[in-house]
């Protein structure tokens, strides 16, 4: 069994355990059943933050070492991060629609910075798709990967910097606004989704390696098809 399958299997088991904790933890007195959505909403955005920081590290290392493995790491991490940001936005909108009475508010700092972060990293993926030369692609996306990471602390601290609709962090150094059972459920899911991120990242890197090998194979075949003319053939003309 491959490393990726083992990791995905472990992540799957962890998600099932996390789901059990999420569904058996007590519901919030005001939010009711909707409070369970926090067990997906928070872990997915946490994983997205980690993914984008990993991208910036990969981008910096590519700038320094210029080896393809760092470019692969950076690009693969963005793809997984965008998926998790999208899920966090979606679950947050469903929760907000029920608890706030609105799915979206452009005046809210956290919502807007998260949406901007989502589209910037979608742009990163579009940028990569638009460039054929691997070195140019790696350089330009590394520059964007390093600059774009500034959005991670900006998004995280948006709730402290601008007091708008989104509540501040539930777990703070001076204590928590949540009961212990809900914190345990969220932490179990945080661990499960982090494991899932690692599994998907390793799987995405494996795909990138296989695609590069296939591309090299195709290029070699294309080159073989074009043979230089033989001297005798040229003389006949």
């Amino acid at each position, binding site marked *: 069994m491959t490393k990726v399958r083992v990791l995905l299997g472990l992540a799957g088991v962890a998600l099932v355990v996390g789901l059990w904790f999420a569904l058996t933890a007590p519901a919030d007195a005001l939010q009711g059943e909707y409070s369970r959505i926090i067990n997906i909403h928070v872990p*997915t955005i946490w994983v997205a933050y980690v993914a984008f920081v990993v991208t910036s590290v990969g981008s910096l290392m590519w700038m320094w070492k210029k080896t393809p493995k760092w470019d692969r790491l950076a690009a693969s991490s963005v793809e997984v991060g965008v998926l998790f940001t*999208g899920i966090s936005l979606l679950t947050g909108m*469903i929760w907000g629609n*029920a608890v706030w009475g609105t799915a979206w508010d452009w005046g809210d700092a956290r919502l807007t910075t998260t949406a901007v972060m989502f589209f910037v990293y979608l742009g990163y993926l579009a940028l990569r798709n638009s460039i054929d030369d691997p070195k140019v692609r790696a350089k330009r996306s590394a520059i964007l990967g390093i600059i774009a990471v500034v959005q991670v602390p900006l998004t995280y601290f948006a709730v402290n910097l601008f007091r708008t609709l989104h509540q501040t962090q539930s777990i703070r150094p001076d204590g928590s606004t949540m009961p212990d059972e809900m914190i345990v459920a969220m932490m179990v899911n945080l661990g499960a989704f982090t494991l899932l991120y690692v599994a*998907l990242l390793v*799987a995405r890197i494996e795909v990138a390696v296989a*695609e590069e090998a*296939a591309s090299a194979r195709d290029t070699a075949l294309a080159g073989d098809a074009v043979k230089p003319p033989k001297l005798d053939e040229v003389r006949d003309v």
Partner: protein
Amino acid sequence: MSDTAVVIVTFLVSYGLIGSYAVYLHLKLRKAKG
């Protein structure tokens, strides 16, 4: 739709998106390996 049903659908859609991405990666890998 009841609150519980909305929450269950939210979980299913989220896990479904992640599962779809895993299948997409699997198919991409199979295609690249020929």
